[in-house]
Each structure stands twice: as structure tokens, then as C-alpha cells.
């Protein structure tokens, strides 16, 4: 009896070890097999098998059998294997994917001038699609020239399809109109007026709950935003940019005939003094540095802050519907975009990332991928992600499609804008309700106003080799110092001293020369 028992345990030990060995070996092979499936390309009439990597703004991305995805696949004769990556970690994930060498057939490059991508482009790792664009009517006609121009690499070629975005409606200040009305204040038009409004939002109890528990600006400073809007991130950067009057890291100095690095401008110091004063008066969260984008947004959504910086198109999806739950009296039109500050508002670059195709994809398949994007941009195909499927997502009333935004959100419809998008301003459409229609009309009016004062990034698409090397470290140092000054940890004199070292830094000088040269070359001087 005992003998049998012993043999049993020994056999069991054998079985366990064999199973474990096999599982280790199999897990090591697993990745490779998956990779190969997407690589195959069959006949010209077979559905195009294509692997895609892009951003998803949703917490739960579209599943493989998502109805909208299936409908798009059918319309474009394709089989898409989409890897959705969260917005927060896209940059890291992209770099890792590029480093692995196992790159999806169509990959979203959020910053076409990032160092890894530019380096790989130089080595020929991606298709130069410039000669092919003219063969596809939607690519050449449906994507604005500004987007094609600003995404050109240093050699003047396009290594990816820009994901077009409207040049109007770039992120700028949005203010609580109901708070302004309650305190009898006007919509601010200068930074000084904005300061008075912020002061009132802190001191005069704009939410009317009897306690002084509000702040003005839902601001945050995060190392994730290095280099964006002058290092301070979108919110505080928008204030700094309003002082300078440009949303670029460079400003053209006509008297010297050269581009001047943003940080050397006296307006940056002025804006720092402004922000330091605003912080000390409680006009932004005390824990500014510990907050992340989502937490800063929460402040606005929870009725605790009256000003944010974002696109007007985010009104319902991110803010207004949540805010209504906290403050039922809030109306969509209280989400009030400013037209300009000091006569400035930023003009968009016309794109948000590009879709690149690795050179490892054969030419025939590359052409079919371009065809896929082109077909997708046809109105009848694009309408699938705009309105969904009849009966499920929309009904036809009086010959017009009326979509249910709730159902479209549930099926991740707008996530597909992160692959292919056709510029269609959200405020041009009639809303689901009268309230939304009114808000859209307001936004349309504001955009028309903004159009008169909007300033484009004059250095968009220009590159400097020195800059690529030194900017990442420099941007971080600049953000840290600015943050400390705003918090009151360092005196403003520390900024003067820093600017002096920047002025004498040979790298900064080299970067300025290279940028100036690139700028002149592009402008045909």
C-alpha cells in the first residue's frame, strides 16, 4: 500500500514538472506566433489584414467584435487587429514598440518630431508616402494642406498620414458663465481682467454655498507635459502664451532676423510673477504639483474650480454631464469659451499625430493600407463612426439622422477617430436637445471670433539637431524652476539668473541658429 503511494507521488512529480516545463517554453513562444498572423497578406480581393496601434481615450477600449468596428471592416474590406493603448502611457508604449522592432502595420505616432521616430525615419524604417498621396482623393483632398505641411520631416517628405483636426477650437480658456453672472462680472479679455475674475472666484463664493471653498483655475504641473505650451503644461502654459502672444517655443524677431527661444523673452518673467501672485492668493490648487490631468479636471467637474483650459468639443463628454449631477442648475451654455486674452488665442496645427507604415510592409500592402484609410474617409463609411448603425444608434427623423450619444459612447464610436478622422466641427451639428443646440451655436460664434485673433505655431514642423539632444533635459529643468518660483520656493531673481545662463549656453545658441536657418529655408528666404 505504502509502496504504491510512493510511486504515485513520484509519477505526479514527473507530470507536474513536464507540465511546468512546457508552460514555460510555450509562454516564451506565444508572442511570436501572434505577431505572424497579422503579417500575412493574401490576394488583392481578400480582406486586408492589418495590425494597428493607436490611442484610446476610453477606460474600456472597443472589443474585437465591436459592432462599429465590424461595420467599418465590412465597408473597407479589411480585417483590423487593433491595439488600443491608454492615452496616459502612449508615449512610453510607443517607444517600447519601436524599440522592439515588431511594429504594427499602421502605427500612430503622437509626436512626429520625437527623437526615436525621427532617428528611425532617417534610417529608412518607415514608408515615405509623399509620392503616393496624389493617388488617393480623400488623402490629398480631405486632409488640409496645413496638416500635411506641418508634419513634413526634415527632408521635406511625409512619413505618415496626419490625423486631421480642426485648426480652430484648440485648447484655450473655458469659464463658468453662471459664476460670472452671479458675481456680476464680465467675460475677461485681458490677463489683468482674468486676474480680477480669478480673485472673485476665490473670495466671493461664486457657487453660493456660503463657504469660501472654491478655487479659480483647475491647474496642475506635471512632468508629462514637458515642452508642451512652454513647459508648464496646457493650463498655466496658456497664461504664459497669452503674455507672449504666441503658442510656439520660438518667436520671430524681425530686427535681428532670427528666431528667439521662448524662455529668453521678458514676457515669460512677467507671466511667472503673475502666476506666483495668483498661487499665493489661492487662485489655483495648493497641491498643484501633486495633481495629474484627471485630478485637475475633477476640480472643475466637482464645482470647485471655475476655469479650465480645454477644447470646446470636450464639453459634454468630459465635463458638463458630470457637472450637472453636482450642480443641477448648470447649463451647457455656461461652459463658456473665451475668445481671446490680450488679443491672443492659439491656432491648432491641423493634426494630432500621424499614422505611419513601417518599411517592413511590402509595397502592395502599403498601398492597400493607404486605400483603406482613403475609403474610410468616404462620407458613407465615416458616418458609421459618427452615427453608428441605424436602429441601434440612430433613428431617421424627418430625413435627418438623430443619434443617441449615450449608445455611441457605449460602443466606443468616437474612439475610431483616433485611427481615421474627417474634420467635421462638432458645433456644426444640431444637438440632441435644444440646450445642446444652443451650446453648439455659442461655440460656433466663439470660433468665428477666435478665428480673428488666433496665432499659429510658427515653428511647427521645424527641427534642430541640437535641440533634439538638449531639449528633453532642458525642458525638465525649466519646468522645475518655474514650478518652484510659482510655489514661492525660489525668488523671481532665480529666473533672471537662469535666463542669463541660457543666453550664454552654446547649445541654446546653436539651437537658435539651426531653427532660424530651418525657418528661413521653409519660408523661402
Amino acid at each position, binding site marked *: 500500500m505504502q509502496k504504491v503511494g510512493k510511486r504515485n507521488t513520484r509519477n505526479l512529480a514527473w507530470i507536474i514538472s513536464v507540465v511546468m516545463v512546457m508552460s514555460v517554453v510555450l509562454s*516564451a513562444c506565444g508572442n511570436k506566433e501572434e505577431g505572424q498572423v497579422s503579417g500575412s497578406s493574401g490576394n488583392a480581393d481578400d480582406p486586408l489584414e492589418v495590425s494597428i496601434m493607436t490611442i484610446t481615450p476610453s477606460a474600456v477600449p472597443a472589443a474585437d467584435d465591436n459592432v462599429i468596428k465590424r461595420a467599418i471592416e465590412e465597408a473597407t474590406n479589411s480585417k483590423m487587429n487593433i491595439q488600443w493603448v491608454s492615452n496616459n502611457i502612449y508615449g512610453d508604449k510607443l517607444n517600447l514598440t519601436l524599440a522592439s522592432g515588431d511594429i504594427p502595420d499602421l502605427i500612430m505616432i503622437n509626436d512626429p518630431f520625437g527623437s526615436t521616430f525621427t532617428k528611425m525615419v532617417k534610417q529608412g524604417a518607415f514608408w515615405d508616402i509623399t509620392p503616393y498621396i496624389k493617388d488617393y482623393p480623400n488623402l490629398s483632398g480631405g486632409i488640409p494642406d496645413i496638416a500635411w505641411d506641418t508634419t513634413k520631416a526634415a527632408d521635406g517628405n511625409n512619413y505618415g498620414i496626419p490625423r486631421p483636426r480642426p485648426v480652430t477650437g484648440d485648447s484655450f480658456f473655458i469659464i463658468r458663465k453662471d459664476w460670472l453672472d452671479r458675481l456680476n462680472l464680465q467675460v475677461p479679455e485681458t490677463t489683468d481682467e482674468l486676474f480680477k475674475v480669478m480673485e472673485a472666484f476665490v473670495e466671493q463664493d461664486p457657487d453660493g454655498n456660503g463657504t469660501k471653498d472654491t478655487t479659480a483655475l483647475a491647474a496642475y*504641473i506635471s512632468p508629462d507635459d514637458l515642452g508642451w505650451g512652454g513647459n508648464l503644461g496646457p493650463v498655466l502654459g496658456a497664461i504664459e502664451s497669452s503674455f507672449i502672444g504666441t503658442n510656439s517655443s520660438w518667436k520671430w524677431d524681425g530686427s535681428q532676423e532670427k528666431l528667439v527661444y521662448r524662455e529668453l523673452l521678458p514676457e515669460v518673467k512677467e507671466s511667472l510673477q503673475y502666476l506666483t501672485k495668483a498661487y499665493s492668493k489661492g487662485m489655483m490648487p495648493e497641491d498643484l504639483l501633486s495633481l495629474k490631468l484627471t485630478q485637475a479636471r475633477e476640480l472643475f467637474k466637482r464645482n470647485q474650480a471655475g476655469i479650465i483650459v480645454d477644447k470646446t468639443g470636450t464639453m459634454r463628454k468630459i465635463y458638463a454631464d458630470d457637472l450637472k449631477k453636482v450642480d443641477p442648475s448648470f447649463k451647457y451654455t455656461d461652459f463658456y469659451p473665451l475668445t481671446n486674452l490680450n488679443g491672443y488665442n492659439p491656432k491648432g496645427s491641423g493634426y494630432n499625430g500621424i499614422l505611419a507604415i513601417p518599411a517592413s510592409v511590402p509595397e502592395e500592402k502599403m498601398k492597400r493600407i493607404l486605400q483603406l484609410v482613403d475609403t474610410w474617409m468616404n462620407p458613407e463609411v465615416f458616418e458609421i463612426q459618427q452615427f453608428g448603425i441605424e436602429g441601434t444608434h440612430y433613428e431617421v427623423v424627418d430625413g435627418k439622422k438623430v443619434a443617441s450619444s449615450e449608445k455611441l459612447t457605449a460602443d466606443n464610436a468616437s474612439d475610431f477617430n483616433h485611427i481615421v478622422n474627417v474634420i467635421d466641427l462638432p458645433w456644426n451639428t444640431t444637438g440632441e436637445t435644444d440646450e445642446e443646440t444652443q451650446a453648439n451655436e455659442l461655440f460656433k460664434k466663439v470660433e468665428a471670433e477666435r478665428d480673428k485673433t488666433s496665432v499659429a505655431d510658427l515653428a511647427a514642423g521645424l527641427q534642430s539637431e541640437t535641440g533634439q539632444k538638449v531639449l528633453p533635459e532642458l525642458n525638465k529643468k525649466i519646468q522645475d524652476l518655474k514650478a518652484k518660483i510659482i510655489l514661492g520656493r525660489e525668488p523671481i531673481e532665480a529666473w533672471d539668473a537662469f535666463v542669463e545662463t541660457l543666453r550664454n549656453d552654446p547649445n541654446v545658441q546653436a539651437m537658435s541658429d539651426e531653427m532660424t536657418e530651418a525657418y528661413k529655408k521653409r519660408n523661402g528666404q
Partner: protein
Amino acid sequence: MSTVKGKQTSTKKKGLNLLSALRRDRSLYVLALPGILFFLIFKYIPMWGIIIAFQDYSPFRGIQGSEWVGLQHFTALFDNPDFALLFRNTLAISLLNLILFFPFPILISLGLNELRSVAYKRLIQTIIYMPHFLSWVIIAGLTLLLFAKGTGLINELFALWGWPRVDILTNPDSFWIMVTLQAMWKEAGWGTIVFLAAMASVDTQLYEAARMDGAGRLRQIWHITLPAIRSVIIVLLILRLGDIMEVGFEQIFLMYNGAVSEVAEVFDTYVYRTGIEQGDFSYSTAVGLFKSVIGLVLVVVANRVVKRLGQEGVY
């Protein structure tokens, strides 16, 4: 004649021994195989990638096609004006860990070991283990909720009592001690497991004999418990030295902010920023390699010192 013969048989026996030992314990070796394969596949084969530290690595060209640059990345690291800062911060946080954190679980286990009530002891153990299972993201969130200057619970209380608010999260003066205390709160309870196990194996007769000789509680701890766990302490200390250049990336990364950057930037965060965020793979590999070499040297040296002192080392 007989000695020669003896020698022959012994060598023959050795060869036979290995084979027969292999055969005898074959199921044990097969059991160990997954572990060996694991280390080969996931630890040793990836180590091959270290060579990109000596290349100007391009993902497109691959390891075979990339250009060799020798020690260029290492000299770039040593020439970096921030190198001294990185080194200081890493070492400071690590030494604080060694001085404050390392002895802490030993003290707790000594205390727990003296508790008479088993139920009470279990309860305390369970409570202090718990934080180990929380991720750093949650702990960073808790820290923010408790200590944030504007909205943190503790500061709200202070404000209520009329005390001045304290700034912990964005204060460079308190950063090192804060991360050390954080690590202690999270891991100290977990660290007691090994020590308690070692203490449980001490022969109770020793304590009885000591008590007969009139030794008090403290004397018993000093002369019996501590010597009994000495070898465990030494082994753990040596292993800890191997990690001296690692200060826990996640924790530092999550607590990092612009106001504390000059005390919070350590090798781990630097590798992340240069490697993953900026895509400078070769350079960050060189930094990582430099870090590992220091750890290896420290382990080897410490092990040798310990053996010189007549104690048992790690190997």
C-alpha cells in the same frame, strides 16, 4: 601501489558519482528544470541585450547592424553635470533605508517574539503584513490624501486646531525621510516573516536554562535570540547591499514632483526618463549596467568581509 590504486578508484568513483547522482535524483532535477529554464530564458538570454550599452543602438538596424561606440555612453554619464546629484540621491535614500528600515523588522520581530498570547501575535502580524499587498500607486494616493498641503486630511485637522499647515510632499528637506518612512510602513511587517521563522527555530531549552541562571527578558534577547538569528541578518544585509543602487523606481517615480527634483532624481528615474521617454536606449542601458556593477561589487566584497570574520556568507 595501494595509494595509486586508491587514487584511481577515487577519480573513477567521482565520475560515477556524478552520473549516478544525476540518475538517482533525476526527478529532483526535472523538478528544478522549470526554474533553471526560467532563469535561462527570462534572465540570462535577455542579458545579451546589455551589449547595446556599447553601441549606438537603433531598433531598425537591430543589435547586429548597430554601430559600436565603445565606452562613449559611460563617459557621457560620468561627464553629465547631474551625475553627482544622481549618485548622491540614490546613495542617500539607500543608506537611510539601510540605517532606519533594515533594523526595523528585526526590532518588531523581537517584540512579537516576546508576546505570550498567540492569538494577539497573529492579529498584529496580519495587520502589519497588510500594506505589503497594496501597490505603490495606492500608497502614493493615500499619502496624497493624508498629507497634501491644501486638501490632505492631516493638514485639514491642523488647520482646524489652528496649527500651521505642514508641507511634506513638495518639500525637498523632508523628501528622503518621507520615502523611507513610506517604505517602512509598507514593507516592515512583511520583513518580519523571515526573522520570526528564524526565532521560532531556537531551542526553548536555551531560554529555560537562561532563566534558571537568572537572566531577564533583555538578557535572553541579547544572548540567545539575537545570536540565533545572526546568520539570517547577515545574509539579508548582504543581499540588501546588492540592491543599494535600486531605491524602488515606482515609489520614487510616484512621489516625484518638480519641487523636489533635486533630491528625488535617482538612477532608476533617470534611466526611465532617458530610456523610455526619450528613446535613448543605449544610454539608459549603460546607466543601468553601471548601477548593476556597483551592486555586484558590493555583494562580493561584503561576502568576503563576512567570511573573513568567520561568519557564513551568501555563497
